[in-house]
């Protein structure tokens, strides 16, 4: 199972906890994780990836294994530790300024 950590606002929107476990079909990429997340929590559709453009919302970032993968391709396979569930895939709101 893929562990996904989501920020407070999305927890309230999806009415779920800070971390959810998802069964994501291979290959496991940011896009496949998010689409699986949206499938399980339809209220999140559009809140992470924009409608229309299908791009990551500008103030959202993705972390994997202590790396910022926000600017990687959405279809780049995620590290093995994410796929195994040893590390969480982290979705968070960017902190803009102090």
């Amino acid at each position, binding site marked *: 199972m893929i562990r996904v950590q989501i920020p407070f606002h999305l927890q309230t929107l999806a*009415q779920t906890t800070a971390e959810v476990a998802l069964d994501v079909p291979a290959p496991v990429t940011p896009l496949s994780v998010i689409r699986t997340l949206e499938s399980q929590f339809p209220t999140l559709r559009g809140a992470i990836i924009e409608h*229309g453009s299908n791009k990551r919302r500008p103030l959202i970032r993705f972390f994997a294994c202590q790396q910022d993968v926000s600017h990687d391709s959405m279809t780049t396979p995620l590290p093995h530790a994410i796929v195994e569930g040893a590390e969480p895939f982290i979705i968070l709101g960017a902190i803009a300024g102090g």
Partner: protein
Amino acid sequence: MSRVRVLAGTKKGAFILTADAERKNWTIDGPFFGGWEIYHVAGSTVNPDRLYASQSSDWFGQIIQRSDDGGKTWQQPGTPPGTPTTTPEGMPIAESNKFVYDTSEETGSPLTTHQWYDGTAHPWEFKRVWHLEPSLTEPDTVYAGVEDAALFISKDGGSNWQELSGLRGNGTGPLWQPGAGGMCLHTILLDKNDPQRLYVAISAAGAFRSDDGGNTWRSITKGLHSPYIPDPTAEIGHCVHRLAMHPTKPDVLFMQKHWDVMRSDNAGDLWHEVSGDLPSDFGFPIAVHAHEPETVYVIPIKSDSEHYPPEGKLRVYRSRQGGDNWEALTNGLPQKDCYVNILRDAMAVDTLDDCGIYFGTTGGQIYCSPDGGDHWHAIVNNLPAVLSVEVQTLP
């Protein structure tokens, strides 16, 4: 016995305040959607338990919420938990937070540019829903005024949204420009006597009227004078802050502009100033008494740079002559050291026999006058900054 339900949108959630017709003892429920900006909550006049809320975030975008039980429970229309989000063919079933400008060749308008603050061309970009206006006749029909300015309609209870693109495409769109708060469509007025007639107002483009149900639009800005634009009497560029109308006199419109309080007696064809003896004619909201079409309320703000009441005195001003002559209403309102603002969607009136007036402040207070403005009390003092106030009068 009648009662009232106040719907408050704030910077950090929605609140619902209820009281009986005396409007003395209040129950406060919320926050709903804690942590999110709630620009507007509005109830259907056809089905008062049908509420719509605009929930948004710079980070996570726009969400539409709906309640069918007066605010006890909420859901995103079209995406109830546990239901499929696509048809067997893979098409989206409903996406309540999907606001996409209509650029189709058949019905849409080219997605041109509008003006940016510096006058350069800037592409249209959806940011949020500022205002929701439920239909006066159909509980499943609701209009949404959005930033960047456009008008959307849903005919299925908020599940799906389509742009009424004749507004943005009426030919003047490339001249529209943002006000300080963004280029927002913040006011939608529906004419109870003529379902084909709608009004909208946009900062800073102006005001517009449709006489064919929203398909085509024309600007209604003749008589406005705005010295902060190159041509003060131009058709486009006026920063209209709010429009108000009394349902029994729909051709009479009142406007709080960036500066100036204005009036039109012919559905916006021509405006004249009625600021009269106000201490400042800058402000945001404007409202009309529920039973007296010539009784109008504004809340003067010191200036466009100083968004707080003149002299630190929070005063509602009432005109019983449809403008020009104004009286200060102060009983129960702070008369010193008050430096809050009252935003454009944050004043409302109920329809009880003794008309109640309500407004919310950026300091988190919501005030109520149960007697048309003569006496005021704070329903609540310490909410997050109040973005909008609506009130429902319930049997």
